[in-house]
């Protein structure tokens, strides 16, 4: 959020992809002000994943 909303407090209200339960984040720049639930994790697939091996782009 640092780059999009510098210095502003940002609220993210999302859903868990597994159970659909609420995931709520409140943050300013890179500082997390609130995480609900505290056990929340983020998952990001890499754009350089192994699935690109043998990509048709280079064959």
């Amino acid at each position: 959020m640092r780059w999009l909303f510098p210095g502003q407090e940002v609220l993210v209200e999302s859903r868990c992809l597994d159970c659909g339960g609420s995931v709520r984040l409140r943050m300013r720049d890179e500082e997390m002000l609130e995480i609900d639930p505290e056990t929340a994790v983020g998952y990001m697939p890499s754009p350089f994943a192994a699935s690109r091996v043998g990509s048709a782009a280079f064959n």
Partner: protein
Amino acid sequence: MNLFRSEEHLTRWLHHWHAAGDYVLPVEEWAKVFSAPTFQRRLEPDYLARAPEYLEEYRRALQAAGKSLPAPDRILSTVLFTDVVESTRHAAQVGDSEWRALVQRHDDIIRGQLQHFAGREIDRTGDGFLSAFASPARAIRCAQAIAVEMHSLGLRVRAGVHSGEFEVLGDHLGGIAVHIGARISALAGPDEVLVSQTVRDAVVGSGIAFEDRGTHELKGVPGQWQLYGVAS
């Protein structure tokens, strides 16, 4: 980024993907990773085109959070470098406006031949192109066709071809093999297609003939490199 209420929820969702753990962080850690300068660049209009250049920054941001990117994918491929001979002199002779038009026609010729020989444009390199091919013979034939067609513009090109294993960085190729191809191209004369021994050995039986151009040191690349000029 996808959010989960806990790692247990994520594990359930990704139960079949063993590599998932490499990319899971508590949200506080992701917030720090996303504060890296490389993510600010995502707001720039040319971000996608330049993304491979930012890979190292992304890698460092992940490392600071205790994670690492997977090793880059590697593929066997053939690269062709082409470059206009004495381009600065030509540009000075004809003037900026006409030179721009010439370069546009030069680019059209190369892209047309790449399409014909099933090559893929990887990058522009000054007055030249870096292209990739699945077949070294097609790369050679493409280079020859480009050299002949450039005569219609009053231009001459030099070309270098090398086969090897390359790193796949998004839509780009990287690794030492790219540098080898560039160095080989730089040693080629006007209208010449210069290839590495790897390429010559790979196309045995294709009917392509070569002339020995001796062994060379390629700047920054270990060892001696036997090079060959394409004769026919």
